[in-house]
């Protein structure tokens, strides 16, 4: 770093930006060029680069600057960027963090990851090719993630003879397309990453261009996001309780400013108090602003926990359990409406499900299309419902309280990313009718407790046969029962559903809700469904009180079910005449913690039913 005083380096505000481009646009080369020309490539790294260029390089005799940034071995060998890499460089005026993200459609999630923490985006275009489908995709994702400033880097300008005419035509094309995306600024720069024209050094070949070089422009972008002017949002991260005399709420101010003496409210509960102190290791503060990590104490002993959001009483976030959002899907297994995911918003985890998928957006054409599921890298506009109300803001107003991720509840994979559009007020407007006769009253009248006996297992495992015997025995004991199975549900309530994964999820969701109503009525409900997915069985379990759901796994091996094949279904599935048949071309996820596991008894279904009844007595569902 030349002629840079220590003092100057410390004064600049950090800019985080991402670069988007496809395989051959020269994205990694551009970042390599920025590092090289700001002299952040050090002697030992340069020596390594020379070695690597000879081994993997694609630029002949020259240094291949892209090799500076393609970090993982697999990427270097394949000559592409797979993952998001973060690069650091600085000039005398500013420090930068670059998120280098791959541009292929199959890496949409990586681009979104890079964009989520960036304030600006550099979108590369190959001057020979002009605005392409991928350019539209990159721009749309940037806009979706809330990027305000776009730099259109028209790269490889050397390969079109530094043609101004070509450059202006590309810029006009782009501006026409990008207008609806409403970026705050679009700056177009002709450059050659490989030779350095207009990156740091002004090119002598583009005399027709009088705008800034890339680095000049990046140094001047205004990144103040106005976070301090927004309403106060303080997500409580950790309750700080060293002794009985101190109870503080640690967290980072997401937006706004907070001062001692101000009235604040816990968004979800509506309880109010006054800020007493703003505690830090460096002493108490007179105010904390957006971005500050502090510990707040309150004047009153009110209930506050991790996940709560503190706000000023007159500027509260919405508190809703239903909202609409754009969701980007990030795992191989598709997003299924109705399935329960874990949602992380702010410092809180809450179960959530997509109640309806309104449409998905083609990232290349921006067209809306009807869809039942979202596949990896697809983006859809959805309604979601959470298990408990959460405090939130639209993403456009506040990135910190308007963004969420969805987590797969079994693998813990980060499955989706969401940007909230608006809250749906239905939850707060429909107050439930309080009832005079409740479940407890019905239990007293019936003389037994309600429950759901959920029989799961492969087709032909004997679920329905056993369930029938159990119901006969329960009835004989004077227990109110009802049987729900494929026959009486598929022909009526669920007549509109098929056997795709999405329809199977919805089938089980509806059955779960019906079962819940019967439980409320005091009945023992016998449900006999293949129900192949753990997630859906868990969804039903969570609709009910813990002791009310009894999962009964009829663990008959696939070979035995195929041998029995009472309805001839396996034979037809194996011939390919039935699609999505569980155990053949659709998976069955066996229960891991079923309350009752029935392995085939030589004494037949009567013996297995006896074991179920015994378990019901042990659990005091029925008297002994």
């Amino acid at each position: 770093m030349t002629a840079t005083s220590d003092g100057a380096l410390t004064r600049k505000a950090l800019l985080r930006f991402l670069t988007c481009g496809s395989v051959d646009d020269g994205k990694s080369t551009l970042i390599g060029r920025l590092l090289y020309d700001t002299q952040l490539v050090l002697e030992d790294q340069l020596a390594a680069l020379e070695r690597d260029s000879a081994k993997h390089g694609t630029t002949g005799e020259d240094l291949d600057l892209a090799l500076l940034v393609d970090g993982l071995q697999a990427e270097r060998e394949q000559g592409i960027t797979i993952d998001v890499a973060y690069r650091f460089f600085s000039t005398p005026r500013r420090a930068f963090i670059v998120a280098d993200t791959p541009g292929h459609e199959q890496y949409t999630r990586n681009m979104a990851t890079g964009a989520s923490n960036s304030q600006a985006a550099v979108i590369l275009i190959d001057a020979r090719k002009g605005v392409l489908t991928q350019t539209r995709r990159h721009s749309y994702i940037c806009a979706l993630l809330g990027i305000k400033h776009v730099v259109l880097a028209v790269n490889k300008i050397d390969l079109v003879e530094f043609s101004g005419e070509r450059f202006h035509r590309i810029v006009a094309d782009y501006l026409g397309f990008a207008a609806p995306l409403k970026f705050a600024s679009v700056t177009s720069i002709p450059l050659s990453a490989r030779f350095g024209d207009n990156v740091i050094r002004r090119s002598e070949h583009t005399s027709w261009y009088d705008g800034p070089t890339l680095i000049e422009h990046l140094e001047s972008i205004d990144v103040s996001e106005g976070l301090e002017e927004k309403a106060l949002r303080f997500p409580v991260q950790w309750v700080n309780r060293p002794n009985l005399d101190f109870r503080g709420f640690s967290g980072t101010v997401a937006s706004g400013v907070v001062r001692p003496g101000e009235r604040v409210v816990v968004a979800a509960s509506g309880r109010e108090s006054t800020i007493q102190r703003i505690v830090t290791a460096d002493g108490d503060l007179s105010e904390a602003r957006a971005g500050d990590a502090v510990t707040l104490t309150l004047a009153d002993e009110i209930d506050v926990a991790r996940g709560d959001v503190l706000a000023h009483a007159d500027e509260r976030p919405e508190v809703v359990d239903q909202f609409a959002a754009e969701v980007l899907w990030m795992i191989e297994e598709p997003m299924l409406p109705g399935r329960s995911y874990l949602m992380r918003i702010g410092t809180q985890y809450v179960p959530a499900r997509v109640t309806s998928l309104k449409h998905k957006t083609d990232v290349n054409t921006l067209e809306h299309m009807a869809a039942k599921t979202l596949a990896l890298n697809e983006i859809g506009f959805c309604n979601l419902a959470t298990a408990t109300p959460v405090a939130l803001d639209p993403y456009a107003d506040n990135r910190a309280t308007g963004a969420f991720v969805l987590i797969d509840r079994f693998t813990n994979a980060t499955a989706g990313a969401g940007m909230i559009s608006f809250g749906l007020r239905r939850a707060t407007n429909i107050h439930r009718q309080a009832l005079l006769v409740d479940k407890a009253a019905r239990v007293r009248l019936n003389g037994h407790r309600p429950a759901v006996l959920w029989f799961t297992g492969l087709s032909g495992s004997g679920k329905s046969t056993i369930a029938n015997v159990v119901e006969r025995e329960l009835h004989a004991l004077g227990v109110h029962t009802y049987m729900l199975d494929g026959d009486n549900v598929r022909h009526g309530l669920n007549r509109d559903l098929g056997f795709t994964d999405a329809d199977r999820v919805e089938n089980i969701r509806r059955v779960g809700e019906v079962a819940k109503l019967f439980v409320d009525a005091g009945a023992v409900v016998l449900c006999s469904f293949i129900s192949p997915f753990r997630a859906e069985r868990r969804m039903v379990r969570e609709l009910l009180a813990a002791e009310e759901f009894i999962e009964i796994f009829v663990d008959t091996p696939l070979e035995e079910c195929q041998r029995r094949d009472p309805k001839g279904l396996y034979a037809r599935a194996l011939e390919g005449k039935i699609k999505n048949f569980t155990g053949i071309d659709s998976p069955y996820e066996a229960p891991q913690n079923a309350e009752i596991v029935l392995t085939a008894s030589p004494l037949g279904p009567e013996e297995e039913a006896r074991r179920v009844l015994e378990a019901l007595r042990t659990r005091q569902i029925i008297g002994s």
Partner: protein
Amino acid sequence: MSTSTRIALTPHLRRLESESIGIIREVAAEFRNPVMLYSIGKDSGVMLHLAMKAFHPSKPPFPLLHIDTRWKFRAMIEHRDAIAERYGVKLLVHTNPDGLARGINPISSGSQLHTQVMKTEALKQALDKWQFDAAFGGARRDEEKSRAKERVFSFRSAGHVWDPRNQRPELWNLYNTRISQGETIRVFPLSNWTELDIWQYTRAEQIPVVPLYFAAPRPVIERDGQLIMRDDERMPLKPGEREQERMVRFRSLGCYPLSAAIESSAATLDEIIAEMLASRTSERSGRLIDSDEAASMEKKKRDGYF
């Protein structure tokens, strides 16, 4: 912590500080049994300082863990014990007993085997022994190419395996802290710091560092173009080698036979920062373990190295 002559943090450092504190608190809030890896170096010093700030007036709700290869500079061990005392935090120390029994050392075993057994294996043993589910490390993304893609919350499947292709996307600051039995997370609160940030913060916050970072006349030998300080008698001289006193300091500290010194006259934090700004080599160039083989850091990380 003395605050008397402190200079105010720049907005840039304050932002880095807040971000790191947020990450550290997140781990305390979400994990059952976290631990902070303490390697005694300048990055560890900053990380520990940030942890003290994050939980004030409480103490950090986790212990420190030092993986002792028994080949650290003596000055490092003294510093470690003094720091644990000064901050009043619990310090755990673990050395791989099998490695000791086998006599593994950086000189005759070679740096690769020594690092594998005494650092990587030892770390895994310690994490298993105390059943830690999250471990803080002081690594920064600017250090090395494969580090540039590291997550802040880096997921390890059972057996401490790091699969670079199977890392969770990290959007915003919404870290996914969910793990199953046997899985662990390594957390890097200093991901977005650069070496310069570390030194400027160390100066601003007056964080104590091992004196070896400052230039002083020290006895060194020249070996394969690197200056090695012979910290004790265990390292034999090769024919023709002789100790000579030079004005040197260390940019990076590890096992002494594997940590090369640089010639320098920078004896204060101001001078170190000035020297850094003029420097043309990266700090890891003095790390003899990185050049073992191509993409060596990635390989080590897959094996469980920090």
